[in-house]
């Protein structure tokens, strides 16, 4: 399939989704409000643990602020991709998409792209509110941090595509994707650095593909050493970037293969509507 055709399908899907989104302005504005409320909830939730008149540690502020931003950023690939397939299936329009001669994956990815653009804006709103309420953000190496943050996006999309493939085979995907998103947020150290995680959780975190880029991101912005890989396994500052780069290449490919294989299987079996 020609790349221009795929790109065109992606842009058409994105445009269509933005037209639909603009029809519901309250949804757009409401999500900004929700992201500010989310910061407020976190700030209040930690208050019972703060001894009087003690400022918050800078690495804590960094974790809570960027953690929320990454959580919002990851919601499109980890949640929206699967949900959009589920939506098409419950509406009964999934088979129509697959009967049309247009490329399927870009059409479905276009939906996530719209929410990805919006989630970056919501995340920025969260970040600004967190910086204001928690006491400002400090960065050691912002360009490198942004690089690792961007490197994490294909990994999220790879995981999301695998989940989207699973969506075709299960009756109800919402609890699974929600647990996946919360689990990934928790174990990849969005909010908590790995050195304060209990050991069993830290071992589990090593099997979550997104952990490496998030750890490198945290390490870059806070100026600390990477913490996920224990020193007994080798130098973390060397191994973690390698793992992060390899996963950023492999996981999206794995996702595309899983998606295509599932669609082929569904076509052979005679239907996509398993719900």
């Amino acid at each position, binding site marked *: 399939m020609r790349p221009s055709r795929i790109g065109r399908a992606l842009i058409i899907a994105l445009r269509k989704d933005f037209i639909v989104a603009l029809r519901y302005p309250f949804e757009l504005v409401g999500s900004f409000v929700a992201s500010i409320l989310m910061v407020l909830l976190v700030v209040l939730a930690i208050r019972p643990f703060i001894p009087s008149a003690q400022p918050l*540690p800078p690495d804590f502020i960094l974790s809570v602020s960027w953690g929320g931003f990454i959580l919002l950023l990851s919601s499109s690939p980890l949640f929206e991709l699967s949900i959009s397939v589920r939506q098409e299936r419950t509406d009964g329009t999934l088979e129509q998409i697959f009967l049309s001669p247009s490329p399927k994956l870009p059409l479905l990815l276009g939906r996530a792209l719209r929410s990805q653009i919006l989630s970056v804006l919501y995340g920025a709103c969260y970040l600004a509110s967190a910086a204001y309420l928690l006491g400002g953000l400090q960065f050691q190496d912002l360009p490198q941090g942004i690089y690792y943050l961007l490197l994490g996006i294909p990994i999220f999309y790879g995981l999301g595509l695998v989940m989207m493939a699973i969506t075709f085979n299960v009756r109800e995907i919402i609890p*699974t994707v929600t647990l996946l998103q919360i689990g990934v947020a928790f174990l990849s150290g969005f909010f908590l650095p790995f050195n304060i995680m209990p050991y069993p959780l830290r071992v589990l975190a090593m099997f979550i593909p997104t952990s490496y880029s998030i750890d490198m991101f945290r390490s870059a912005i806070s100026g600390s050493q990477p913490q996920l890989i224990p020193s007994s396994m080798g130098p973390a500052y060397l191994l973690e970037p390698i793992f992060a780069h390899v996963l950023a290449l492999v996981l999206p490919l794995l996702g595309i293969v899983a998606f295509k294989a599932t669609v082929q299987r569904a076509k052979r079996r005679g239907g996509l509507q398993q719900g």
Partner: protein
Amino acid sequence: MLRYREWIIAAMLYPVIFASIPIFLGTWLASGAEGASMIFAKNVGTEAYSTFLLVGANMWFFVMTALWDFGLKLRKEQASGVLEDIYIAAGNLTWPLFGSGLFGILQCMAKFIASMAIGSILYGTLRYVVNPNFLYCLGMLAVGLVGVYGLSFMIGALVLRVKEAFSLLVILQMLFGIVMGVFYPVSFLPYGLRLVSYALPMTIALNDMRALLLSTQYVLDVNWDTFVILCQSLLYVTVGAIALRRSERGIRRGAGLASL
């Protein structure tokens, strides 16, 4: 529910995960579990911070479930064009609503037991939960949930009008999380907001469930509080049912139920 077993597992795990984030953040801030217990006891009145947060997270999850289940269900029916069929049917909607509410309450009670057991085992705080007061706690939960379902009827009425259910529900769930004192006592809120908080259907129940299990403070005392929760719940259900009925009538007179 049995057709979608994934939901049962998720419902037991969500509150534990919700509670785990402030538990870990708090432990980090206080430089360890011992420090966290001490500071939490000084600020809140109990050192059992994980049980405190688990009860709150469960309650928040139930409020969210009630709001999403009912609010979004109506919106989906409306968007897919079957809401009109439901209203045209020659039956009385009160009893199906009552039945689905009752099922929701029983379901929440079962989830509460399971989730508290999982969370307490995980955090080694089972001693706070395995005591006779837990039964009283369950009773209080059931009464409080009646009010939550009343509130969800009101939200349903609003969703029928506003039509943009998703953001409305996301904002409401965050607002309830803040105002109900899910992760902290309501006394942490400014005075004016505290009054709003006590007017919500689950705040007093949540406060008293914690008081029963962890010997923190009641709002008034256990008997008066139970009476207030009961009155609040009846009020919310009545107002919710009226609001829903009025909203339906209003829409029927206007453009139709399925207008997008």
